[in-house]
């Protein structure tokens, strides 16, 4: 699991474990709690971390370079593979940027479909977090089993729409790939009816869970000022008490038509980040309830503007477009040179940038807390390394 190497030689014939010297420990890259391959170089004094540096690149697959060698439509496929727990959000962010770059209109029905998909995706992604985080804190697999039961239902609904359970490629420039089948509305209605009681079950199971509270309260505190300074976003920023949600601050799709709240933490510890995600599931359900009622009343209509497979956005145009993905601000910066493929395709991955403050959150805590803190940031390595 971890390898050790003594820093300077032991003093005066003492074995280094007795000399009180700092020890450098590599946590990872293969470690169950890193959700992928991330290495943490931790310098320990006994059990206390005195320095920590994350080492990246084990999953680097040069998505940006690959996207620059493909057409805009082909590049959507790559975005699925970055944040694979929120592939719909990645599809959406890329499509919004491409549509702004190439002036592609989107029909009304597609706006509803997109919003339903990304909010379901947010619930699925947070369900994953609700399952894995208590697991990392020592509350073992029970929450995992519960939350995966509900995530499974969402994945089934996605499978109905696009035949895929993880990498959807469903949202395309100009709309969505195809309309939803009739059974989707039935499944979604059942899901929306059942889910509030399921969330209540999670709360009962987790919010007063002694293990979880002991492992996460007052651990890994990120202050409000530091969260802003370190460009943290999403639940990490809101956990630190900053009222900032791009769905409210810079509404995209049709979020401005719906009524929802933005949950905010108090002191910015692991518990607050956990609690914010729990509340966000409820808010997503609120949005879905309102949106679904309008969606079922919609007359059948086009779900996609016909767009050529290969199109050429105007030369010299550039765009920075952002959405609130389950992990934070997911931004796409695209530059066009008038060609069929993007001249520059930059992805601002929230997972990666949220790791900037990891050192400051971890130093001074014990090794086991480092795992809890890393888990509370909720990273996806596919997006960190891209």
């Amino acid at each position, binding site marked *: 699991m971890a390898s050790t190497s003594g820093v300077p030689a032991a003093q005066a014939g003492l074995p280094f474990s007795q000399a009180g010297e700092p020890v450098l420990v590599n946590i990872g890259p293969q470690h169950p709690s890193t959700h992928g391959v991330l290495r943490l170089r931790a310098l320990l004094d006994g059990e206390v971390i005195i320095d920590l540096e994350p080492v990246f690149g084990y999953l680097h697959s040069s998505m940006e370079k690959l996207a620059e060698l493909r057409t805009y439509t082909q590049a959507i496929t790559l975005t699925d593979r970055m944040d694979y727990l929120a592939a719909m959000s990645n599809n959406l962010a890329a499509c919004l940027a491409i549509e702004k770059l190439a002036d592609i209109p989107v029909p009304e029905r597609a706006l509803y479909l997109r919003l339903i998909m990304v909010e379901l995706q947010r619930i699925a992604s947070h369900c994953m977090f609700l399952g894995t985080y208590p697991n990392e804190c020592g509350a073992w697999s029970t929450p995992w089993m519960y939350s995966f039961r509900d995530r499974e239902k969402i994945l089934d609904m996605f499978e109905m729409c696009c035949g895929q359970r993880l990498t959807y490629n469903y949202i395309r420039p100009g709309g969505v790939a195809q309309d939803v089948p009739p059974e989707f509305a039935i499944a979604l209605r059942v899901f929306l009816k059942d889910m509030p009681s399921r969330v209540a079950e999670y709360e009962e199971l987790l919010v007063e869970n002694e293990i979880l509270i002991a492992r996460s309260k007052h651990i890994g505190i990120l202050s409000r000022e530091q969260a802003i300074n370190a460009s943290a976003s999403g639940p990490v920023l809101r956990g630190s008490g900053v009222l900032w949600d791009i769905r409210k601050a810079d509404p995209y799709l049709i979020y401005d038509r719906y009524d929802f709240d933005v949950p905010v933490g108090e002191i910015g510890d692991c518990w607050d980040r956990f609690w914010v995600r729990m509340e966000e599931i409820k808010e997503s359900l609120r949005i879905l309830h309102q949106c679904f009622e309008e969606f079922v009343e919609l007359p059948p209509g086009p779900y996609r503007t016909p767009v050529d497979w290969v199109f050429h956005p105007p030369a010299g145009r550039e765009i920075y477009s952002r959405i609130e993905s389950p992990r934070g601000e997911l931004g796409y910066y695209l530059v066009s040179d008038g060609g069929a493929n993007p001249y520059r395709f930059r992805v601002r991955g929230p997972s990666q940038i949220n790791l900037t403050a990891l050192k400051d959150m971890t130093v001074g805590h014990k090794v086991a807390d480092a795992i809890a803190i890393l888990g509370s940031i909720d990273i996806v390595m596919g997006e960190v390394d*891209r």
Partner: protein
Amino acid sequence: MSTWLSGRDVARLLRAHLPDAVEEEADDCLAVYPGALLDTCRHLQRELAIDYLNNLTAVDYLDYIEVVYHLSSLERNHLLTIKVRCYDREHAEVPSLTPLWQGADLQEREVYDLFGVVFAGHPNLKRLLMWEGFLGHPLRKDFVMPPFPQPPGSPVRKRGEELGLD
């Protein structure tokens, strides 16, 4: 809705305090000289309540490498694009924004890794994604990708041999 600040308005504001900072101004962005970047950002922090670094990246235009900063003010809900151009491709150097925003840390390392832009003053400027010892900077437009190794006897290799390619 967030408001994108006009580069021309910001340039007018900057000129009063930093007369030599602005290289070029446009409606949607503002290019400043590398030497004036830190002062510009400090000034923006003070005057326009710019407090958040959204995105930091670079674009290779072959004539020059452009480092692009997307800054915003969470308080006023404003966004602003600032650019810095490096005309010397071999020794591209820009001051680091880490003294002002910790959030620049990993993003500057990524730009250094993939574009070869040196950020002067960065506390830990190492490659982020590629391994130490990797030659070249993959996202530069003149980067030549190494050929994908083909196993002996594969159709691609045979075709290459027919065409006289190595």
